[in-house]
């Protein structure tokens, strides 16, 4: 099994895939900011944002199910927020006793919790479309154009390049461990400390392999003329198509924000 199957990018010939990566990154972040700014309980605003996200997902040809499923991956984190249902002040709808403490479930708490979950899910949808429609190197190049420090982008590029190589190596280490471990069904061998130590040795081994690999890589780069300066091609100019998509999108976001504040 290859770890490369985890790369989020899915090649398609859709409108979204054809947009400039810089535009997509900025629009995605604007959407997430707009979602964060939307007041709690402004349900029509959330519906409109969901519709906008759905529209973008459909236009990207990634598959609505794909987008919805991947964006739902973060929802378990919602458990961290669930207690807000009990702690937000307001008129109590339901009260229970848990471990000797009185807990009052409030309407305001439910509204806040639902808003948090919705914001998270909507933001994730946009992030999934962004990464699904943009090859990662293009995304990095977009970040470089937006003045993220050169070194950080260069390191990230390298990491992406070697992620799958070293990830495969880690998988091989685990397979080797499994092959050398005899264990009865459902039971793990040795004590937990021993197992942790063995894993530690796997990590140490992987570290040394990575370090030595990086030294070989560096030597190879120097042999090919690397002087510490990271150079990249200039990004192509924006198309009119990019602006044609960006402007209505931004206007829609602004309109939704206005709507949310005027009515609520």
């Amino acid at each position, binding site marked *: *099994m290859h*770890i490369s199957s*985890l790369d*989020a990018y899915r090649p398609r010939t859709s409108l979204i895939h054809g947009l400039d990566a810089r535009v997509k990154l900025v629009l995605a972040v604007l959407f997430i900011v707009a979602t*964060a*700014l939307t007041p709690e309980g402004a349900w029509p605003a959330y519906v409109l944002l969901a519709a906008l996200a759905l529209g973008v997902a459909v236009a990207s040809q990634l598959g609505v199910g794909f987008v919805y499923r991947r*964006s739902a991956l*973060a929802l*378990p*984190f919602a458990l*961290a*927020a669930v*207690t*807000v249902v*009990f*702690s937000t002040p307001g*008129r*109590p709808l339901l*009260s229970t006793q848990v471990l000797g*403490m*009185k807990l009052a479930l409030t309407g305001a708490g439910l509204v806040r919790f639902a808003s*948090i*979950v*919705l*914001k998270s899910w909507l*933001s994730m949808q946009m*992030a999934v479309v962004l990464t699904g429609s943009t090859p*990662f190197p293009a*995304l990095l190049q977009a970040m470089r154009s937006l003045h993220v420090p050169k*070194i*950080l982008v260069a390191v*990230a590029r*390298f*990491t*992406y*390049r*070697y*992620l799958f190589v*070293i*990830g495969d*190596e*880690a998988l091989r280490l*685990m397979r080797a461990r499994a092959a050398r471990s005899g264990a009865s069904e459902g039971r*793990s061998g040795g004590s937990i400390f021993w197992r*942790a*130590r063995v*894993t*530690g*040795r796997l990590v*140490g*081994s*992987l*570290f*040394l392999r990575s*370090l030595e*690999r*990086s030294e070989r890589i*560096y030597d190879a780069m120097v042999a090919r003329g*690397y002087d*510490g300066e990271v150079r990249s091609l200039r990004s192509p100019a924006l198309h009119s198509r990019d602006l044609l998509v960006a402007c209505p999108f931004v206007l829609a976001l602004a309109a939704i924000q206005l709507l949310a504040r005027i009515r609520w």
Partner: protein
Amino acid sequence: MLASGILTSPAPMHIPDGFLSLAVSLLCWVLAAVGVGLALWRSGKALGERQVPLMGVLAAFIFAAQMLNFTVAGGTSGHLLGGALAAILVGPWAGILTVTTVVAIQALLFQDGGLLVMGANILNMGVIATLVGYGVYRGVMALARGQRWGMFAGGFVAAWASVVMASVATAVQLIFSGTSPAAVALPAMAGVHVLIGIGEGLITVGALAFVAVVRRDLVEPARAPAGGWRWAAVGLVLALAVSLLAPLASTHPDGLERVAEDLGFMGAAQDAPYQVIPDYVFPGISNQVLATIVAGLVGTLLVAGIAFAVARLRRRAVQGSVISD
């Protein structure tokens, strides 16, 4: 199953979008930028042109190392976060940059962590975890004065402290954003990560032991330059600062509002039977949170104090011997 093991992050610390308020997100971006900027500057000076290939590959290593797991009990498994290990093996600045890169790639490529809140995630796992881990490690090494146990004890405590402090910082951000009440977020996050930190510590020690055997030159105590106490102080101050933010969170508007409502309505007879505010919230906030914080602080200082005292006693015991650093 292997795939799901890869997709789930080692510890529930990657905050998704929507869980932090805009103000908290932006503040965390600023703090993270300061930390990362400092790291860029210092590691650039130290590594020069090796910087990019070395840190790129090491970041890939950290990412891959987080996939290496061991069975804890039943279906659960222990993983590595890697901040402390990175800092111990390649220094704090390179450590910050590598973990930051990992966090960014996890967010951008795998949606593990939000885009707007990436600043907070970088701050927690890239900056705080790494600096606290390194500070604790150098502190213990300074106490051990070059003895072998220093590396293992230091590695374990550093890894444990880095995970716990990162989780406390996460909890503080959730509290300030109003996403989670203080009485729940802090004990829950810190409590879970006190346990997860043990796994982190064990793996870190295992890795350090392995590297010490195969490539002694990478972890030799002599390699650590003087100034261990300064680093220990940095780590300790950072840890204390993060811990102390939590009581401030209890003056969050929610807490005050409730007090105001409580006092305001207490006298007037309301027709809707106003449920007396659950006792656990306001008094709970003062008691549980402060108790947790005080316990954490006392525990940290106690451990540090004991270690210091033991080191002093041992030094007195070998006063007349030839061995000195």
